[in-house]
């Protein structure tokens, strides 16, 4: 962090203050924006989708507050539209090439695999650059080598070791995402213990094994009660998903820091489960019309349970140099769907 020396230090400067994140959006308000987005996207045969994306993102960024200041989403719809058109053209060109010359398509696919880490870096750089808080933009500078390791080598090692190294692969991914990010000129830090990752996976393994044993046990000992077995399996499966989401998010945020400020998170299993369950039921019952409100509910829950323990004032972060990152990376990322 760059200290602004001309500023007087206030008495409270080095006290730790807990700032809660806060999401001030409203389900019905967002529903109205969302449905108009869809209507205009239909009417314009998809062209409006770039504007829709910007309006959706702006709604979620601008309603997210920390210490009474909101985040902002800065991307221009035209930039996104351009990237989207290029990406779709590239995809169509690839599909045609793949059909005309199957061997050529293999070469292209190989080239694409080589290029993916580059695109992911670009995409994250764009995403961060288009995010701002207190009029300071975020940044992302990932190296090709690290992206390559995180995307291919670590996960492959995880598979080859039958999952033993998988927690490490996830940890490396988190480090890559956070340590390469910056708020203005201030780099984020990420300090986590591999054992904390390992524990999560061991517990999941435990739940899985015990759950399986119980299910099998029931159908052997009480054949009459075997009808509940499928329901039990689904329940265990959902419990594992909720457990993983809660624990991995808590670990992720608690391990992240910015200068002397530490992030914290205290998501809980009952809390997350009820949000997911309410969202799922209402979305299905309303034929999807509840989807926007569901997103708002999830955003509220996440924000309410994530905080920043600030040591001193948040006033002294400095903006980074201007830089231009092409929108292409992000849009390629969307077309070929690289989930991180």
């Amino acid at each position, binding site marked *: 962090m760059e200290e*602004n020396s001309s*500023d007087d230090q206030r008495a409270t400067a080095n006290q730790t203050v807990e700032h809660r994140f806060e999401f*001030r*959006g*409203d389900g019905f*308000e*967002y*529903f*109205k*924006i969302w*449905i*108009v*987005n*869809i*209507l205009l*996207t*239909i009417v314009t045969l*998809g062209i409006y*989708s770039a504007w*829709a*994306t910007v*309006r*959706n993102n*702006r*709604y979620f960024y*601008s*309603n997210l507050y920390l210490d009474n*200041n*909101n985040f*902002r989403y800065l991307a221009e719809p035209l930039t996104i539209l351009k990237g989207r058109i290029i990406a779709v053209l590239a995809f169509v060109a690839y599909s045609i090439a793949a*059909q005309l010359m*199957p061997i050529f398509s293999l070469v292209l696919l190989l080239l694409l695999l080589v290029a993916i880490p580059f695109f992911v870096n670009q995409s994250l750089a764009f995403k961060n650059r288009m995010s701002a*808080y*207190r*009029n*300071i933009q975020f940044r992302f500078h990932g190296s090709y080598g690290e992206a390559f390791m995180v995307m291919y080598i670590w996960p492959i090692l995880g598979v080859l070791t039958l999952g033993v190294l998988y927690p490490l692969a996830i940890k490396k991914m988190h480090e890559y995402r956070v340590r390469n990010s910056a*708020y*203005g000129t201030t780099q984020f830090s990420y300090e986590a213990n591999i054992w904390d990752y390992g524990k999560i996976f061991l517990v999941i393994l435990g739940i899985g094994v015990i759950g399986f044993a119980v299910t099998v046990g029931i159908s052997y000992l009480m054949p009459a009660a075997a009808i509940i077995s499928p329901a039990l399996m689904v329940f265990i499966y959902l419990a594992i998903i909720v457990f993983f989401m809660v624990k991995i998010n808590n670990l992720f945020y608690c391990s992240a820091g910015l200068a002397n400020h530490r992030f914290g998170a205290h998501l809980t299993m009952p809390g997350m489960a009820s949000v997911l369950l309410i*969202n*799922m039921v209402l*979305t*299905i019952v309303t*034929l*999807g*019309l509840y*989807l926007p409100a*569901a997103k708002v509910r999830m955003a509220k829950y996440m924000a309410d349970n994530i905080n920043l323990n600030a040591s001193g004032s*948040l*006033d*002294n*972060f*400095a*903006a980074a140099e201007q830089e231009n990152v092409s929108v292409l990376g992000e849009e390629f990322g*969307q077309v070929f*769907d690289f*989930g991180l």
Partner: protein
Amino acid sequence: MIIQGNYLDGKTSRGRRAQLLYRESSELQIVVFDEEGYSSEESDPKSIAVDFHNLEIESRLGNTPREISFAGNQLFITPDNDAVDALILELGTGESVSWLHKLESSLPTIAASVIITLAVLAATVVYGVPKAAEVIAFKLPEFVSSKLGSSLDVLDNTIFDPSALTESRQQEIRTLFAPHLERFEDLNPKVEFRSGMKANAFAMPGGEIVLTDDFVELVKDDEELLAILYHELGHLKHRHITRRALQGSMITLIVVLVTGDLDTIDLLTGLPTLILDLSYSRDFEREADQFALEHMRAAGIPTENFALAMEHLQEYYAEDKEGESSENSDSDGESWTDYFSSHPATQERIDSARDFR
């Protein structure tokens, strides 16, 4: 006009309380104060004159704070959306008196949007997607679909085992099929026998028609085998496999357009997508059944054989489920589980074969 807000200079993260002042025929000014309760004698409020050619006022979005950026990276931000709308009117720049926001906040528009969106989506999903997939599937050059046919190798390596039928039985069936296949040479049909799976028959896009051993054994009559053959030829003729794949990707594309991102494709959107795919699949099965019945009649094979083959299939799977009683009792179709099946209810298929004329 005075608008209260916050000023951020874009160089540091420090925000200051500020006012935006506008008087007719004078410049736009932003007056920046030091933090409240902060030594008052320190300095006079700083005043920044704003050239309104450099001014950018964000369009209104719900109740999110309004952002006014100017002179490069400086930002004035205010929760007072109405005041900013009034300012835009007075400045006469007009352009961003947000018609979007008007659309987004008028209830009649919202109601109309919901209805139009649902109607368009329903029409697209029910008519548009199948029609588009059909057109594309028949425009695709032959070799594209035949390249996909190599997927039989994949199945051979994973699910299928070589057939246990005797060579002579296989030859017998091939001879039985040969005259019927002759008229469909353009489809390049090739009959294959495999085991390793329950009674089933499929058509691959390359033209292979695969019959499993269980299937060959469960039918009681050669003409029933022909009924199955014609059903699979129907799939080939109508390019159902290619169309189903195309329809799947179109639905995914629509979901992405509607929800705005790929992250949403999970349990929530996955279920409706699956139900749609299965409903498309059932339509294809009906079309293939229809094809089979028509061509059986043309070839002089009693269509009753189709119904018999289906009945034998039904018995086969009923025995398979022995113990789990009640399941088969709802013989006349209409059950909610139908929505989760890739094929129409077998009873429905038998009935429509018998009603065929």
